[in-house]
């Protein structure tokens, strides 16, 4: 139980996917302009991350490992993710059209989101068990959501600021991200402090 809490909280706060592992920077910077789209995107990402881990983990341990094909994991995982995203989109469109309208926009973008492929590969690399892998994926998704929501808030404040011409647009967004990630560094050590 303690292990689960540690994995969850370190994935959300300490090893935040966006702000300390640099995974999923494109959607983090691209979709964080408005709060509701930031939330929509991160729910979709969390959902696909958990689903992708739940699929790739058994495939790796029950198909690739017994057949000594572990070097094929990258190519197989990306195919599984692409198929999953497509499948989720079709299912949502048919059965939950209202959810499809709000989340469907973000689904095609998720296939090429490095955070999703990243979490599946990291779970294998860390040799997590199935449950721990799922927890880690959930934590990664929630961490992504936290970073997105916080950053959306920061950006809405930035909207009205007067910025030097050279820094306007992308550079100032990156520097704001730098400051947000500086704040997240404060969490390092929190796990040892609480559970150590």
């Amino acid at each position, binding site marked *: 139980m303690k292990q689960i809490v540690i994995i969850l909280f370190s994935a959300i706060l300490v090893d935040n996917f966006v*702000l300390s592992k640099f995974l999923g*920077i494109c959607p983090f910077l691209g979709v964080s302009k408005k709060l509701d789209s930031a939330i929509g995107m991160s729910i979709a990402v969390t959902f696909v991350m958990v689903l992708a881990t739940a699929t790739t983990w058994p495939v790796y341990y029950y198909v690739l490992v017994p057949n000594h094909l572990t070097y094929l994991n990258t190519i197989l995982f990306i*195919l599984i993710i692409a198929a999953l995203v497509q499948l989720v989109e079709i299912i949502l469109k048919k059965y939950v059209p209202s959810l499809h309208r709000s989340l469907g926009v973000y689904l095609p973008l998720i296939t090429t989101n490095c955070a999703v492929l990243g979490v599946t590969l990291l779970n294998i690399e860390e040799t997590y068990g199935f449950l721990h892998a799922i927890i880690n994926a959930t934590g990664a998704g929630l961490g992504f959501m936290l970073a997105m929501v916080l950053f959306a808030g920061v950006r809405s404040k930035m909207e009205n600021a007067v910025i030097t011409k050279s820094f306007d647009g*992308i*550079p100032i967004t990156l520097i704001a991200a730098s*400051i947000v*990630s500086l704040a997240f560094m404060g969490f390092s050590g929190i796990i040892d402090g609480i559970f150590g």
Partner: protein
Amino acid sequence: MEQKKSKMSILINGIIKENPVLVLVLGTCPTLAVSTMAVNGLGMGAAATVVLVFSNILIALLKDVIPEKVRIPCYIVVIAGLVTVVQLFVQAYFQSIYEALGIFLPLIVVNCIILGRAEMFANKNSVLNSALDGVGMGLGFTVALTFIGCVREVLGSGSIFGMQIHSIDPMTIFLLAPGGFFIFGCTIALVNRLTKGRGVKRKSFGCEGCPAASSCSQAEKAEGGCEA
């Protein structure tokens, strides 16, 4: 002569005019993650260049065979296969770089630059031009990564390409995540400054630079597309 000039311009295009990192602002994740040391930037750039050149060649060869509707998954399969080859090669011969790049080596699969060039260039152009475009874009990526890597290495660990510079007090923060965002932001601002604002093509992060933009039909339809 005319022909030759245009070939040259394709090559140069990727390095300067349309530098994927500094002008098009693509591939932000690997740029930020591996640029802690100049050598890592160089290694990542080289690995991505090899994948980019071969994926451009293969996709230019296959462009008439691949059905329009499933082209993106097809590109991903081609790229993923090449990445696996490069990954095994680096693991066998450059163990230290393999460890430094870590998960970002397999993640070349989802690098926007490679998919973007497949979508924007290789499926419309001849094999030779696509190969040249791959070399140019790859070099542009490598140059930008190595430059950012140099700056972060000098400031963060007080060395350059592993050689210690004694007069500099290292500031570890530049090796960590905040320093990465900061230096990348400053580099783009510098490009903006030097080119008087005309250089950087993307004014904000949005759909136009995303390789999935054309396949993501909802992007235009829905108000809250990629860049809501």
